[in-house]
């Protein structure tokens, strides 16, 4: 199973289109000229460090309890190399059901794709760490795509796949269908997760971009445990999940 995960990861970049190739290394003879050229700070044409932060925060009612979801990510860096962070979680009523953080190094290895590696740390449902490798970028047909493997320090290994797409009603009113799923390669009994597809989250958000950086949205989301994991939930007397209607905002800065 782990071999399968690796194979998937290796194959993923093949979807991406190769970039123009690495920069041509300067010939030694050009060194002197290069040294002078690299005084680009003087010109201000230096490699800038940019930042990007995006957050989505929404609220739903589920069986009479308030359900708060957050999903934030961002990066600091240049054109090729970036530090990425991701944070997502869910609070049901007064209890934080899920909270995870990722810190990733991200390299623009292909025109439309970054290869990423780093760590994930979960606070809920229990504290544990993972090593992360994956790719993130834009697939053909303009699909925002993420594929990450999480190799748990407690032994659980899973793959997360996420895709979304923008369908323009107008240039500001945008329907965004999405799908996200977790595939566990082994049982994680202490987390009440069985191997196989453990969860799917799919649906569509309708957002209105007052500006590119601020857009309220409503979303219909089907979030449900699957297969063995759903059976475990039912055995525990828990609801395996279903539809929720969420309202929230998306902002980036």
């Amino acid at each position, binding site marked *: 199973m782990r071999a399968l995960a690796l194979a998937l990861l290796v194959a993923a970049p093949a979807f991406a289109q190769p970039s*123009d190739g690495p920069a041509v290394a300067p010939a030694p003879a050009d060194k002197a000229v290069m040294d002078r*050229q690299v005084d680009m700070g003087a010109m201000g044409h230096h490699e*800038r460090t940019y930042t990007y932060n995006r957050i989505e925060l929404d609220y739903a009612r589920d069986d009479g309890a308030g359900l708060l979801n957050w999903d934030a990510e961002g990066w600091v860096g240049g054109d090729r190399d970036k530090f990425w962070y991701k944070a997502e979680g869910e609070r049901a009523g007064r209890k934080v059901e899920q909270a995870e953080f990722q810190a990733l190094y991200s390299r623009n290895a292909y025109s439309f794709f970054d290869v990423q590696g780093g760590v994930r740390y979960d606070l809920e449902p229990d504290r544990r760490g993972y090593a992360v490798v994956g790719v993130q970028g834009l697939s053909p*047909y303009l699909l925002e795509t993420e594929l990450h493997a999480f190799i748990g320090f407690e032994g659980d290994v899973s793959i997360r796949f996420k895709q979304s797409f923008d369908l323009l009603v107008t240039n500001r009113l945008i329907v965004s269908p999405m799908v996200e799923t977790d595939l566990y390669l082994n049982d994680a009994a202490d987390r009440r997760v069985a191997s196989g597809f453990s969860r799917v989250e799919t649906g569509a958000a309708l957002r209105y971009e007052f500006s590119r950086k601020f857009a309220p949205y409503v979303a219909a989301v089907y979030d449900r445990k699957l297969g063995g994991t759903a059976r475990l939930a039912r055995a525990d007397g828990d609801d395996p999940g279903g539809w929720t209607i969420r309202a929230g905002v998306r902002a980036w800065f």
Partner: protein
Amino acid sequence: MRLTAFLLVLATAASVQARTYDLTIERQVREIEPGRKASVITLNGSVPGPVLRFTEGETGEVRITNRLKEKTSIHWHGLLIPGENDGSPGFNGFTGIEPGATFTATLPLRQSGTYWYHAHSATQEQAGQYGALIIDPKAGSDIALKVDREQVVLLSEHTRETPERILRNLKGDAGYYNFSKRTTPELIADARKFGLKATLADRAAWGRMRMDPTDIADVGNYTLLVNGEPSARNPSLRFTPGETVRLRFVNGSAMSFMDVRLPGLTMTIVAADGRAVQPVEVDEFRIGVAETYDVVVRPKDQAYPLWVETLDRKASVLASFAPRAGMAVTAPAPRPRQVLLMSEMGHAMGGMKMAGAAPMAGHDMAAMDDATLTRAAARQALPATAAPACTAEHAAMGHCTMTPPAAPAPACTPEHAAMGHCTAAPPPPAAPACTPEHAAMGHCTPAAQSQPRSGTAVAAKVAGGTPFPRVDYGYGNDPMAGHDMGMPALAREGDTDGSGRVFGWASGAPYGSRVLSMRDLVALRPQADTRAPTREIVVKVSGNMERYIWTLNGAKFGEAPPIRVAFNERVRVTFVNETMMAHPMHLHGMFFQVENGQPIDRMPDKNVIAVAPGRTQSVLLTADEAGEWPIHCHLLYHMESGMMQKLVVASVDNRDGTPAAAHAGHGSH
């Protein structure tokens, strides 16, 4: 005799006494738009800076005082001056002007014409640091033009955001400013007009490439200015009826190609990028970023609207060209927006389709072990060179038998005719291109004309033609012309889509209008150097739109060794635009001659050449100015994102790039 000679020298010395200007660069709050304060960079307190006026032959001096908190610079765009005075930090030992410092730029002027100056540091230019620079010809010059009045028309943009913020927005979302993307209702409208299957195939093709056919310009929310004033301030230019007026147009914007119209008047183009050309009569012309055009008009006793709109039709400015104040002018109807055609993708298209495969033949031509490709210049040899790299898959895609850019249009096969590729009139009369090799063989007809020629960019209307004409601005040749790329095409260039947009990057001008094509430009003075080039330097103009990274030959500025040219070497520089945007490519320090189909001794001098999406354009360069010269895309945010290279012109003795003493030795152009 000796005494006379001595007196003559004295007299000459007096006449070339330096004219001196002071320029103070400062960040100030100004109301560019009425009622809205904005932080801008001023020159002597204003945006744009003052018009600097000199006379050919004198040595001008400009004392620049930097009152900014950061380093700055002023580049003298188009001037043939020693590299250390060019004003490009990081080149020729110039490191910029420190805060609080005063720098004296010395400008020994060997030319005349319409030029401009602007910051060459970070994004300061966009904040307001630019102005026009006019050099009058010396007395008795053969290109002196007798006019009654002159007006500088400096076109530029004002932004409410800070330029650095614009760059950050683009890095966060390359489509940040595009609010004209195709929507689902437009998909339905297209499906009604073209059929669902064809429409979905079209959308799928664009989606597969992860590109957007409405990506005409990167930045929006601009307010256009004429000499620093937006429409809201009613900018006006005066004349007295009956006068002959010379309008000196400068596109001092950071990102905007503009269409310039003066309805009711015939505009006679008499100079391009400062260099005199044989007169061309037009109704409108497109001006690329950083280009200048001199136009002569003969207005009657009435007011004329000067109407300028950007290529993406999102910004415009209306000025009044009138004999008296208070004469109202109205803007003409705005033009439809464009949708790019898949066939305009040219190289980019090939590049996309070849994902993961070996480079296509076309790319192979430009592929290189080194940053620059050196090759025998004989055009005819090119297809043969490319051939070995041609796999069966490439051939199937029509990538292999690539038409050399300068060759005439290939034959029209029945399939093409059926697709409407052949009905449009062939590119203007000048078409059969005249390469230096042909010229040497005496194949080219001389272009000398006494009567003004007419702008030829617009194709004639034919029966069953498209609602809008095909417009060929002469911004390069289509390397894929005539090849069936198997690309879905909803319609022909000049057709409208279901929601009224026009297909084609170069669109908008109506049938019957006279529009300037680069092919119309004929040097007024014969070129001194008519040598055939000895080698070709291919510059692939490329990038990653999704990440807003822009490159030359696949490398961002600083990532590749400089392009090297020997002093006095004659080279062909071929820009291969692999992107879906037009790039105004600019070279500092020298003019190049645009291979626009004119005889080699009449090819026009330019320092900026626009290369349309997917097109290929060659220029000839005589490397007669030693030094280190920036060669870059003049779209500010492209340059800032890497689209720049260094071109080193060194004498054979000084291969290490130190400026040779040679430039002192040769005379004016």
